[in-house]
C-alpha cells in the first residue's frame, strides 16, 4: 500500500509542478537594425498564409540575415487571434490585415504608422490607400485588392434577347426581368436578402448612386437622397420577385449561377477562379463586367494590407519585407501564384496582368472605386446595414423609413 501512497503524492504534486515550469519572456525594447541577424514573425491569412513562405525565401536571397517565420491563420479566426495577441502583448512583427479590420486595430493603438517617404500614395489604388488612413496618419501598405463587379450568364442573356452587358441600373433591371420572362430562370439576379455580409452587395448600389457611408468628417450619411435611392433600388429586386428573399448563411452563389436559377450576381475577383474550377461546363457562357451605373459605375475596394506593430523590435526589417512584397515585380509574381490583384498600380503594366482580358473589368472598376472607411466600430456599422437589408427584403420595410432608422442607428457609431 506504500506504492499507492506514493502515487497519491505524485498526483497531488503534478499541478504544482506545472506552475513551476513557467518562465517569463524578456521584454527589452531595443530596436534591431535591418542588416542584423534576426527572425521576423509574419502572420498571414488563408491562402496567403500557405503561400507566403515561398516568397519569403526569395526575400531571404536579398536579406540572408533575416529569417522569415510565417504563421498561417484562418480568416475566420484572424480577428480573435489578433485581438488576443494585442491584449497579451504577443503580436508578430508583420501581419496581413483585412480592409474591414483596419479601423479596429488603429483604435487599439497597436499599429506603427508607415513611413510615407518609403511608400508613396501615388503608387497604389486610391481607395486601397485611403482605407488605411485615419487623421492623416497612414497605418498600412496595401498588398492586394479586390473589387466587386457584375457576373452574368451570357448564354441565357442571348435567350433573353440581351445584346450587350447591362450598363445602367435600368438595363440591369430589364435584363433581370428578361431572364425570368424569356429565359425562364427562377430569379433575375442573386442579391443577399440579409445575413452577415449583405452590405457587400448594397455598397456598389450606394456608391454608384453617388452616396457614401460617411462624409469627410466621418459622420454617417445613410439618409441622404442618394442613400435612399440606393436602398429603394436594392429593395425593388425583392419586391418585384427578381431575387430570392430567403437568407441562408453559408450558401454560395455558384450553384444557382451554374443551374441558371440566378443568372447574375455581384462579387469579387476570386469568383473568376471559383467558377472555372467548379463549373467548367460554363466555360464561355458567362462574363464579368463593370457594375451597371446610376450616376456612375462605382464599386468598392476590399483586400488586404500589411502592417507592423509598435511593439515590434524589427521594424526596420519589417519595412524592408513590406517594401519587397509591395514592389511592382513581386506584386505581379504574387498575382501569378495567388491570383490576388496587385494593389500597386505599376504591377498592372506587367504583361502577365496586362494581357489577361478577364482583368479589364476589375482594373476599370478599381481606378474609380470607393473605400470602406476605417472605423473603429465597423463591425457594428456593417451589422446595421445587414439588418436594414433584411428588414427591407424580408420584412417589406419602406426604404425611406429604413434609411432614417439606419442613420439613427449608425450615427452613434461614427462619432
Amino acid at each position, binding site marked *: 500500500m506504500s506504492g499507492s501512497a506514493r502515487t497519491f503524492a505524485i*498526483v*497531488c504534486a503534478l499541478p504544482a509542478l506545472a506552475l513551476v515550469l513557467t518562465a517569463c519572456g524578456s521584454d527589452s525594447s531595443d530596436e534591431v537594425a535591418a542588416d542584423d541577424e534576426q527572425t521576423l514573425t509574419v502572420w498571414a491569412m488563408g491562402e496567403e498564409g500557405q503561400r507566403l513562405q515561398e516568397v519569403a525565401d526569395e526575400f531571404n536571397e536579398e536579406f540572408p540575415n533575416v529569417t522569415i517565420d510565417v504563421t498561417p491563420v484562418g480568416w475566420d479566426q484572424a480577428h480573435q487571434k489578433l485581438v488576443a495577441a494585442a491584449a497579451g502583448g504577443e503580436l508578430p512583427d508583420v501581419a496581413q490585415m483585412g480592409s474591414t479590420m483596419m479601423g*479596429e486595430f488603429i483604435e487599439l*493603438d*497597436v499599429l506603427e504608422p508607415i513611413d510615407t517617404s518609403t511608400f508613396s500614395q501615388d503608387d497604389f489604388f486610391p481607395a486601397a490607400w485611403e482605407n488605411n488612413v485615419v487623421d492623416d496618419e497612414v497605418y498600412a501598405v496595401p498588398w492586394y485588392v479586390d473589387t466587386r463587379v457584375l457576373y452574368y450568364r451570357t448564354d441565357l442573356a442571348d435567350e433573353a434577347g440581351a445584346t450587350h452587358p447591362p450598363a445602367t441600373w435600368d438595363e440591369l433591371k430589364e435584363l433581370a426581368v428578361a431572364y425570368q420572362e424569356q429565359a425562364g430562370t427562377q430569379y433575375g439576379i442573386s442579391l443577399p436578402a440579409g*445575413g452577415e455580409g449583405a452590405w457587400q452587395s448594397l455598397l456598389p448600389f450606394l456608391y454608384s448612386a453617388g452616396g457614401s457611408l460617411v462624409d469627410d468628417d466621418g459622420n454617417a450619411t445613410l439618409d441622404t437622397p442618394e442613400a435612399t435611392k440606393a436602398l429603394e433600388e436594392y429593395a425593388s429586386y425583392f419586391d418585384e420577385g427578381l431575387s430570392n*428573399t430567403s437568407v441562408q*448563411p453559408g450558401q454560395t452563389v455558384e450553384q444557382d449561377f451554374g443551374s441558371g436559377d440566378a443568372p447574375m450576381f455581384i462579387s469579387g475577383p476570386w469568383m473568376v477562379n471559383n467558377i472555372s474550377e467548379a463549373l467548367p461546363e460554363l466555360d464561355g457562357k458567362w462574363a464579368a463586367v463593370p457594375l451597371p451605373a446610376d450616376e456612375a459605375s462605382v464599386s468598392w475596394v476590399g483586400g488586404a494590407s500589411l502592417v507592423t506593430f509598435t511593439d515590434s523590435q524589427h521594424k526596420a526589417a519589417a519595412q524592408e519585407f513590406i517594401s519587397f512584397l509591395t514592389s511592382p515585380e513581386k506584386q505581379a509574381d504574387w498575382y501569378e501564384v495567388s491570383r490576388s490583384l496587385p494593389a500597386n498600380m505599376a504591377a498592372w503594366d506587367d504583361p502577365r496582368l496586362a494581357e489577361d482580358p478577364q482583368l479589364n473589368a476589375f482594373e476599370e472598376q478599381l481606378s474609380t472605386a470607393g473605400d470602406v472607411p476605417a472605423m473603429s466600430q465597423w463591425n457594428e456599422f456593417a*451589422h446595421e446595414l445587414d439588418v436594414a437589408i433584411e428588414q427591407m427584403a424580408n420584412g417589406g420595410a419602406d426604404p425611406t423609413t429604413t434609411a432614417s432608422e439606419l442613420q439613427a442607428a449608425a450615427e452613434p457609431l461614427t462619432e
Partner: protein
Amino acid sequence: MARTTSVSPDDASSGQPPEIDDAATATGPPRRRGRRARLGTQHLAGWLFSTPFLALFGTFMAFPIVASLVMSFTDFGLRNVTDPLSTEFVGLENYTELFGDETFRRALFNTAYFVVVGVPLTIGLGLVAAVLLNSSIDRFRTFFRVGFYTPVVTSIVAVAVVWRFVLDPGDGLISGVAAEFGWTTPDFLSSSTLAMPSLIAMAVWRNLGFPMVLFLAGLQSIPSEVREASRIDGAGAVQEFRKITVPLLRPTMLYVAVITTIGYLNVFEEPFVMTGGGPADSTLTTSLYMYREGFDFFHMGYASAMAYTLFVIVLAITLLQLRFLRDKTT
C-alpha cells in the same frame, strides 16, 4: 459534530434512519449518515483528494472568471484591450441596460423556447435509444452504437451542409419527398416561426448521442438480478422500463438533465451556422447575442454582464432541477 454542516447540497433532509433500501442505493449519497458517523469524517483524505483539481482549477480558471465578473461592472471596450487601466467602473449600468434591451429579452425568450422543447426531446430520445441498444439486441450492437453517436462527433460544417440540404425549399430532401405526394413545403429557415423548430430538430438529432452514451453507462449500474427478478415476475418491457429502469437511472438522469440543460441554455453553434440568428432575430440565442456583442462589437463589459445574467438563470434552473429530481425518489 462537523459532519452535520458538511453535507452535499442535495442532502437537505436530515435525521433519516440509517436504513438502506435498494432504491436509495441508486439515488446518490443522501441518507448514509448512520454508518458514516460510526467511521467518522475524513477531512484530510477529502482535501487530499480535492487538491489536484482545485489547484488546476484555481490556477487556470479562477482568474479569468473573476476578471470577467469584474468586467461586467465596467465599460470595457476595444481600446481597453491594450489599455486596461483606462477602463471605468460603471456600477450596475450594464445590467440595467440589459433589462431595457429588447434584443436581449428576445434572445432570452428564444433560448427558453429552445431549452423547453429541446431538452425533453433530447433526453427522451436518448433514453429510448440507450434502452433499445442496451439489452434488446445482440447483433451489430457496436455498429448501431457508433452509428447513433456519429452526429455528436461529425464536424458542424458537414452537419450544416447536410441540414441545409435537408431543409432547402428548392431541391431539399423534405421538399423533394413532399413534392412526390403533391404537397408544398415552407421555406423553413427563412420563416420566423419555423426557423427555431428546425434548429431544435437539428439540435436534438445532433445531441441525442450524448445522453445515449451516459444512459448506456448508467444502465450498467442496474444489477441484472433486479431485471431478471422482475421478468420472472412477468413484468412486460414497458413495465420493466417504467418501474425498474427509470427509477434506477435517476443519478444518471439527474446528471444528463443538468448537463443537457446547461448545454442548451448556452446554445450557440446551431443558430451560428444555420441562420446567424435570423430571420428577424427569431433564432438569436443569448449566447449568440453575447458572442456578437463581445467579439464582433467588442462591448466586453456588456457581454460579460450578459454572461453573468445567463449564469444566474442557469444556476437557478440547475438548483431547481437538483431539488426536483431528487424529491421524486423519496
